[in-house]
């Protein structure tokens, strides 16, 4: 058990493999795998083709509605938990059955659903008359180690479901991933949750713990993770909406990144694709691009530059190239040459390849962003600090009227709305321009953004101004500080002089404008001497809860789910796996360091963002890790950029 944690985390894929093996064993001997294209990359992180062969997979097909006959009668479909895709598979099976009804009795249809089979899927199966003919399997793969200290569940559809549709059907998968993880790392002594979904995850986790407790899970607290922080994405939207200034952050703005693999498409970038289509754009080339793996353990050069402010990256690359140049192999003797070829050549070739890729990526970033970057950053910082509201709106309005982008323009609108607010007229001006540019059919997008809490819809003064709420008129008058600024100032998220911020401030990831909330949380928790200090420093956060083994001691006796439910009132939180931080004040007054969890030991934290983490946040945590001399592990259901959040609402 004394293996380094990073190696253990990378090895989680073996548990996933074992889980998959277990399912495949139930699907007959020789079978075809029909896989949804979005699952290919994640599956590659779990197993290879050879392994699949060994487990009875004969042929592999991409799932498409028109898929004809395949090599074997046994079919194993492999799809994400998405009703449309699920129904598409069922339709395909029905049509196969209509051609050959004898297949019904063979038990030859299996659907593996990632991360789990939902109850409603069973009823759909039944209603289509396929119950008993098709077998459904849940495959909850473990967190994947995409990079050092970066774990992801790779479920990119989760944000849309959880926050836009407010459908929490797959939330238990997050709980399940933590439950498995804690079997490997040990249970953390203290867990903080911020947001409703995070609290629910802790409640569900406690249900798993209670059910499967027995004598398996050691009750010792973890020797490797001092604290776990769970946070809902909607607790810090600005971090997603702001334009990142780090290399990896800008990479995710420009290129498609899937499961840690970057598609180095320098001609048709993600950025270009979102621009206004006037029907005069050039045809798209379909040639395959180079793929870069964003993993420091494979590409050490990436490890060196990923968190850097973009302005430094090219000079680092240049110095690396100079080193290479100086390594003159012509001067080597025959023996030395042999040695070089045997030991270093391959490594050097790989390094050169990586170097070239990073330079190409940098050039693309410069050519696409450079002349907009500065004004954009200035405007964003003004929005954060509630300055120059009028000119900020003009900036956004001009952007909507000219070089509008299908996602990034919306993102600016959302940021302005959350930080400084939009009037009814301003809001509608932007909506009109957007719909003229991309089509009226996108009218629903704004409702989705509002539902997700990314946008605040102002009400018409005409509609809302009646006698009864004249008292609220003061709410509409301009204020020097919005709710956002009030909270952000309390948590010291807004540096007073953005242009003077050094590299030791996590805010450098947004050009000195903003410290991501997760960096604030990590910093507070890693440097606190007592639980009471944490709770008081984070008192501006209304949704903070405390769980983990120390919360267990707060339970009145050994309260089971049964008892808890019977004592519960309508619309209150269950607090089965965690406790409201504010309600602990009495306990903390008597014993400020209740549970003896602080100062943290070991000095390491796992942050789990529900709804997607981004590269800027990861870089900001890296700074905190250095300044506090600790380890911060980041986990999420996906690594996403701000544009991805907008896409989820579309």
């Amino acid at each position, binding site marked *: 058990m004394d293996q380094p944690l990073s190696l253990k985390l990378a090895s989680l894929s073996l548990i996933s493999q074992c889980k998959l093996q277990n399912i495949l064993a139930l699907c007959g001997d020789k079978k075809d795998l029909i896989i949804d294209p979005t699952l290919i990359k994640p599956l590659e992180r779990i197993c290879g083709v050879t392994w699949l062969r060994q487990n009875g997979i004969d042929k592999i097909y991409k799932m498409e509605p028109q898929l004809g006959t395949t090599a074997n009668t046994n079919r194993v479909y492999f799809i994400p938990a998405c009703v449309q895709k699920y129904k598409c598979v069922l339709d395909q099976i029905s049509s196969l059955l209509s051609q050959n009804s004898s297949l019904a009795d063979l038990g030859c249809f299996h659907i593996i659903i990632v991360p789990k089979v939902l109850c409603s899927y069973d009823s759909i199966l039944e209603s289509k008359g396929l119950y008993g003919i098709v077998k459904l399997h849940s495959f909850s793969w473990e967190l994947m180690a995409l990079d050092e200290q970066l774990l992801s569940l790779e479920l990119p559809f989760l944000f849309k479901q959880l926050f836009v549709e407010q459908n*929490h059907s797959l939330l238990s998968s997050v709980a399940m991933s933590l439950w498995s993880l804690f079997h490997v790392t040990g249970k953390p002594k203290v867990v903080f949750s911020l947001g409703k979904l995070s609290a629910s995850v802790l*409640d569900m986790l406690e249900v798993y713990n209670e059910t499967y407790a027995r004598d398996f899970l050691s009750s010792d607290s973890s020797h490797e993770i001092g604290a776990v922080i769970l946070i809902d994405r909607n607790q810090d939207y600005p971090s997603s909406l702001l334009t990142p200034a780090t290399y990896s952050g800008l990479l995710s703005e420009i290129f498609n990144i899937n499961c840690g693999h970057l598609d180095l498409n320098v001609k048709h970038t993600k950025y270009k694709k979102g621009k206004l289509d006037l029907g005069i754009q050039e045809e798209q080339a379909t040639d395959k691009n180079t793929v870069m793996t964003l993993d420091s*353990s*494979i590409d050490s050069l990436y490890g060196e530059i990923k968190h850097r402010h973009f302005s430094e990256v090219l*000079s680092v690359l240049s110095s690396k190239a100079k080193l290479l140049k100086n390594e003159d192999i012509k001067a080597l003797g025959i023996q030395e040459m042999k040695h070089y070829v045997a030991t270093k050549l391959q490594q050097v070739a790989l390094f050169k390849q990586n170097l*070239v890729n990073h330079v190409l990526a940098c050039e693309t970033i410069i050519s696409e962003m450079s002349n907009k970057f500065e004004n954009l950053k200035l405007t964003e910082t003004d929005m954060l600090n509630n300055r120059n509201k009028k000119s900020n709106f003009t900036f956004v309005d001009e952007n909507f009227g000219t070089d509008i982008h299908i996602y990034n323009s919306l993102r600016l609108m959302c940021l302005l709305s959350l930080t400084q607010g939009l009037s009814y007229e301003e809001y509608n001006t932007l909506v009109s321009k957007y719909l003229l540019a991309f089509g009226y059919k996108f009218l629903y997008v704004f409702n989705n953004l509002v539902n997700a809490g990314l946008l605040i819809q102002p009400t018409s003064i005409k509609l809302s101004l009646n006698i009864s709420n004249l008292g609220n008129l003061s709410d509409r008058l301009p204020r020097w500080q919005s709710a956002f600024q009030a909270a952000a100032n309390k948590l010291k998220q807004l540096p007073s002089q953005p242009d003077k911020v050094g590299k030791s401030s996590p805010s450098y990831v947004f050009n000195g404008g903003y410290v991501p909330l997760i960096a604030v949380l990590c910093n507070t928790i890693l440097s606190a001497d007592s639980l009471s200090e944490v709770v008081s420093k984070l008192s501006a956060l209304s949704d903070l809860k405390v769980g983990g083994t120390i919360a267990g001691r707060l339970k009145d006796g050994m309260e089971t789910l049964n008892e808890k439910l019977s004592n519960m009132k309508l619309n209150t939180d269950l607090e089965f796996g965690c406790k409201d931080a504010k309600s602990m004040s009495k306990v903390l007054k008597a014993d400020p360091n209740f549970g003896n969890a602080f100062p943290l030991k070991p000095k390491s934290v796992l942050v789990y963002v529900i709804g997607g983490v981004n590269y800027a946040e990861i870089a900001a945590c890296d700074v905190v890790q250095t300044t506090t001399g600790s380890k911060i592990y980041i986990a999420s259901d996906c690594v996403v950029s701000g544009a991805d959040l907008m896409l989820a609402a579309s």
Partner: protein
Amino acid sequence: MDDDDYWNTSETKAHAFSFDDDVLTPQEILAIGQKPSGQKEDSVFSSSAISTSRALLPLNSLVSPKVLDLILLAQSGKDPTKDTKTDTEQTVAVTLKRLVLGRNCSLHIHRSLKSKTELLDGAIAIGDGNAILTVVLFLIQTLNKKLVYELLSSRHTALNHYISFLHNEGKVTELTDLLTMLGRSQEAAIYQFHHYVKTQGNNIDSLLRKLANLLANHLNQPGADTHQGKMVADYVKLLEWQKFANKSELFNKSALHCLAYCCAQHWSETAGNMMSPMTVCQRQQIPPLQYDWVVLNVHAKSNKWDIVETLFTKKDWLGRTTVSSHIPIETLLARLCELQASKQLLATCVNKIASAEDRLRLAQMYKIHPVVIETLAKQKDRIALTNYKMTLNPQSEVYILAENTLRDNSIKWKN
């Protein structure tokens, strides 16, 4: 090209990204490295699986075999084989726990309204959406609608799950009934709208009919958001225009897309004609800024610079040519540059900028040399002009212009 030259040319020297000067050019780095070979793999799986390239710990040092069994059991949602004693007591808590664990369970033993309500509240409290939706669907099956709606109206989370379910299943009528009953007619309208554009996207007539109904039944009702209603009404107008135009490539495309088409194909059409760009502009109330932007891009991309110039420049009362557009000057300049407009047009554009400082900055950024030279001469800044001359290509026209300006005796240089 020399290293320094490369970085100091305004094309590559990005404004916001300041670099050390002692760096190699990307081209040089590329030369030291090698051109990417580009993996050309066409199989479903790429051959280089990540898992094989890394040394991993053996499974048994991660978790004990017993724990592994437990993890597998939890994924399958099966009951542990050992204790076959099924819970005899089917309490609400037992049912909910089975739901959360993904084990199969029958809800039908919960027949009283009280236990149904407890089931719903318990599922909401735990927060597992799968359990919440299962219970809601069970309530729909076993209680009359009015009772279910009553229960849902005070339970937001459960309601959202049901809305999401109906929406994803395409059950618009039920969704509309539900939301209308709860007094949320506006939202119902948007869900309907979303459903129509998703399902009727390719049938213009049917889409028009549905939208007309939507306007009549929801969006034109008192209390409705007037702007939303206007947007849908504008949509109808555009679809009607597209029906008239009868071009499949314009089908359900955006207003600006249609405008671009008209600019390209029917530019000289007189106002009043259905296909004239002005008609589309007026019908859809396209703001002047967006109109200018489309016109600029369409004509520039098809190299009709004469049209661009007649539209965006005019002679002032002194007979000088000046730029006139709704597009803010800096944005216009940046775009003209990307579109590779003539130096002449760029110069006219940058000359429009009143502040000498801004004019100089932009002229340098976009390499509009005559304007830089003229501005520096006006500022009487000989040193700056001398330095600037050095960056120009000797023997070029602008180089000579700079030299002549420096020799001009009528300028009283300040330095």
